[in-house]
């Protein structure tokens, strides 16, 4: 395959090998000082919800999977991402768990037979195209992969209804202009509605510009 001329992979293509190397550091800085949500909050979200049978969607560099505490030493983990660099980086990082990798678009039906007790969506939704209502198709696609009583959780940067300092506003505008983010229309109410339409026990909590969410399938 040759270089992609299109912008279709723009959100995923940002995760080149070079970028992944500095991704963690910039994430720590950006989360704390720009988005006003230190990564410890997201890590706590992972620690509180992750299971030993976990699907992670939009894996980034694998930072949270590497840092979080799984309930067992030998979890079953499937990594799902559109971008091979991102998948490889995350899989290398947590190679002690022997994760499996699926390169696919989570906005399309995923067609797997195995199901999971937890599904993580760390910092993915704000990269997907459209509004929260459009992005909610990902919940439709992931729900069949969840066991009864399973939890879906994650975080996403939102633009509407949160206070942002000057630098955060500039960063969000620029990242949207570059099509790395697509979240100018995203807000917590739409996210809450998208979750509560499809799951039980949904919760959205705002820290800085970040919405941290959890929801469950019926037991």
């Amino acid at each position, binding site marked *: 395959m040759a270089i992609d001329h299109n912008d279709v*992979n723009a959100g995923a*293509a940002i995760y080149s090998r070079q970028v992944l190397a500095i991704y963690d550091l910039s994430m720590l800085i950006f989360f704390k000082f720009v988005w006003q949500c230190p990564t410890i909050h997201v890590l706590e979200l992972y620690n509180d919800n992750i299971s030993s049978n976990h699907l992670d969607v939009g894996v980034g560099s694998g930072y949270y999977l590497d840092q979080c505490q799984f309930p067992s030493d030998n979890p079953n983990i499937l990594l799902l991402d559109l971008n091979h660099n991102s998948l490889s980086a995350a899989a290398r990082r947590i190679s002690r768990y022997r994760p499996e*990798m*699926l*390169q*696919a678009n989570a906005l*399309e039906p995923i*067609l*797997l037979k195995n199901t999971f007790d937890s599904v993580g969506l760390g910092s993915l939704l704000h990269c997907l195209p459209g509004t929260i209502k459009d992005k909610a198709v990902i919940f439709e696609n992931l729900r069949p992969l969840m066991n009864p009583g399973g939890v879906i959780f994650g975080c996403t940067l939102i633009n509407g209804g949160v206070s942002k300092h000057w630098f955060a506003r500039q960063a969000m505008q620029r990242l949207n202009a570059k099509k790395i983010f697509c979240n100018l229309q995203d807000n917590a109410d739409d996210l809450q509605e998208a979750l509560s339409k499809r799951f039980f026990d949904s919760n959205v909590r705002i820290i800085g510009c970040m919405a941290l969410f959890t929801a469950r399938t019926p037991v």
Partner: protein
Amino acid sequence: MIEMDRLLEKTAWYKVAGVLVKGYGVASGISSESPYPFGSLVMQKPYFNERGLDLEGFFLGTLNIDISPYVFEIFNPLFKFEGVEWYEGTTAETFSFADCFIEYENTCIKGYVYYPHPETKLRHFQSKSLLEIIAPYIENVRHGVKLSLYFNKEQIRLTKNHKEARYGDRP
């Protein structure tokens, strides 16, 4: 190590070995002889999108995979778009798509079999054992590499055929 048997319902999917071969470079626009400088798929994508197939996030070129001695038939496509007038001055084409997975370098990759119907296609007749697949961008994939492919039995039929036929052949 990816365990595809664990990920996919074994009874619902064919597994077949294939080899990645060089294509004509028309879909991707890589070929200097391609009449479509950015590739035919870039031009076709909006027509597919308005008919319900969103190729957002997929590489807009095809992987050409030789599955000989098998030949394939899409008997129940996931999508079938008839009369797509995607390029001015040519006849409308029909396209079918089917689900598939590719196993490559310990990764499972979700894609679609892309089948421009030969009876509506003007150029580039090719073997019935040669599949065109649309997938997310695959890092470091090279011609000649062996891949495992998984096809949905409810959409695609595979038969073993030692006498190679061509798409344009009449039965």
